[in-house]
């Protein structure tokens, strides 16, 4: 069969074909789109599948943009005046920088119907805390014994060649290093004890990975058996069928709340409030407390799930170590440089 077509008709047909996707659009909610940055991986999946539909019910479309906390700040700084996100998901270490740089704004709690359901500690004027991340030591019980604490990792020979570390770009690692430093007599203004310890331990190290997810990949491959982790990391590895346990350090578990922030100049503040409300809603937090996210709820109506209870009790969370992020941020760049220079071959 031969199709006869003039050049003009061919051009029109081509342009029409190109324009078709613009005409066929999915039905958007009337309130418009909200772009929310979340951590990649299980956070991203859970927020998309659990929080997304609730935001939709409130009349907004939630676009989940996976990005690490530090990357969220970098991207905001890269486009001042035209923020790529409406809402951020970060820990106090990053919140402090965001406040200093004027990149986020205080919220109006009266616009959140679930505000009063939050525990008082989670009612943050810069945005509600959606969970508390409890950090400690993840270990493979088939390879090593339960570590008594941070010191044991560096002093007990069974951990030699099995321990992985990462740099100060990671919140989990930074908190661990400050706690280890304290255990060896250091302070925020004097991190030399931990750097001396790391320098001496380097020949016995299992691996120095580039990120937390890189560490988890190494753990799955049997390259390492111990690393600094959050309870969420351990829950995720268990979900993947890996033998993995969580140990609380002897100095207490360094913990960080995770907050949702409203970006200054956000294109859809109404949508951000709807998103915040959904994330702190009892229905959402009940589901988020289950694996693979196993998040510690901040809504007082939500009990700790069975999995969360295996890792921590409400008492442990209350007595956890909450690092001084202002002090950390003051030195973080310098520590990052020192660490990199120390570990590079």
């Amino acid at each position: 069969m031969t199709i006869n077509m003039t050049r003009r008709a061919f051009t029109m047909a081509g342009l029409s074909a190109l324009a078709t996707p613009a005409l066929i659009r999915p039905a958007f909610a009337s309130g418009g789109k909200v772009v929310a940055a979340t951590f990649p991986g299980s956070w991203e999946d859970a927020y998309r599948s659990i929080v997304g539909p609730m935001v939709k019910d409130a009349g907004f479309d939630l676009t989940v943009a996976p990005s690490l906390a530090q990357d969220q700040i970098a991207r905001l700084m890269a486009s001042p005046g035209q923020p790529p996100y409406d809402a951020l998901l970060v820990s106090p270490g990053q919140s402090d920088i965001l406040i200093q740089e004027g990149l986020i704004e205080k919220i109006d709690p009266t616009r959140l119907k679930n505000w009063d359901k939050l525990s008082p500690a989670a009612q943050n004027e810069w945005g509600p805390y959606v969970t508390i991340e409890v950090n400690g030591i993840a270990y493979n019980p088939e390879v090593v014994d339960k570590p008594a604490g941070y010191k044991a990792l560096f002093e007990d020979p069974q951990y030699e060649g099995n321990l992985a570390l990462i740099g100060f770009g990671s919140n989990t690692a930074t908190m661990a290093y400050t706690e280890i430093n304290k255990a060896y007599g250091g302070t925020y203004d004097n991190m030399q004890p931990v750097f001396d310890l790391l320098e001496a331990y380097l020949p016995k190290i299992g691996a120095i990975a580039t990120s937390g997810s890189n560490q988890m990949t190494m753990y799955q491959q049997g390259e390492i058996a111990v690393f600094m982790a959050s309870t969420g990391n351990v829950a995720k590895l268990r979900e993947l069928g890996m033998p993995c346990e969580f140990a609380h350090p002897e100095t207490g578990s360094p913990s960080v709340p995770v907050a949702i922030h409203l970006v200054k100049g956000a294109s859809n503040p109404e949508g951000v409030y709807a998103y915040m409300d959904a994330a702190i809603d009892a229905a959402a937090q009940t589901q988020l407390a289950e694996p693979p996210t196993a998040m510690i709820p901040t809504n007082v109506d939500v009990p700790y799930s069975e999995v969360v209870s295996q890792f921590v009790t409400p008492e442990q969370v209350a007595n956890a170590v909450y690092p001084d992020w202002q002090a950390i941020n003051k030195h973080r760049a310098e520590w990052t440089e020192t660490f990199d220079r120390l570990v590079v071959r």
Partner: protein
Amino acid sequence: MIRKETLLSWPMIAFMVLFFISPLLLLAGISLRGEDGSWGLGNFAAFLSDPFARGVLTGTLALGAKVTFFVSLAALPLVMLYWHAGKLLRGLILICTLLPMLTANVVRTFAWVVLLGRNGPISQTLLGLGLTERPFSLLFSETGLIIALVQIELPLLLLPVFAVLNRADRKTLEAAEVLGAGRWRAWFSAIFPQIIPAVLAGWVLVFASATTSYVTQSVIGGARLIYLPQFVYREVGVLFQWPMAAAISILLLASTGVIMLGLTMLARHERLQGHA
């Protein structure tokens, strides 16, 4: 006056200016901004006067050179095989060369995590053969990184060479043999000069790709092997030092650019062109 026959190229030129030249100029501009808001070459001076940073720069260029060398070694037997192969085998070699390129670099890199690990086939095979006493890992080592990069970058050298070999005239080989050259000498004097420009083009691609391969460098190399792409990421994503990151990016671009320019000029050299 704009010549009529160049009109069709103007949209592409406009596109390049808008989306390549302009961002590049912007990057160069940012690299000149100091921490205190002043303008100058301070970021470049700070980077180049730091022995650690200089080590990262030379280490990155050395990685590119090592990968290019080993890719060339790995490519040589395949090129010889391709030249002597019939139509069917040539098609098979071409498919095997192209097949890895159909998967993303990230996927290929994570496949190498499995292969290079202490429970991977390399370690277990050598253990099974009794060549090593205990399982070993090639992850987080330069050896492992080079092995992975050689496999990942190999098609970039092979494809231009195969393209030239497809067009190469077998009669020149026969002529060399008739004139008394042995098989190896005939190949190296009649065919090899024809593929030199393609080899140089392949080297440019392999070198540029190996030095800028952030994912493979960070996943296979780990944090103990820092190359310039990770250094740039650290400046942006951890330290938020955009001007310094821009300066390092310009230095990476300039240093790889100089080497690429040198190879390109070599490929266009009169004597080499004469053989093609």
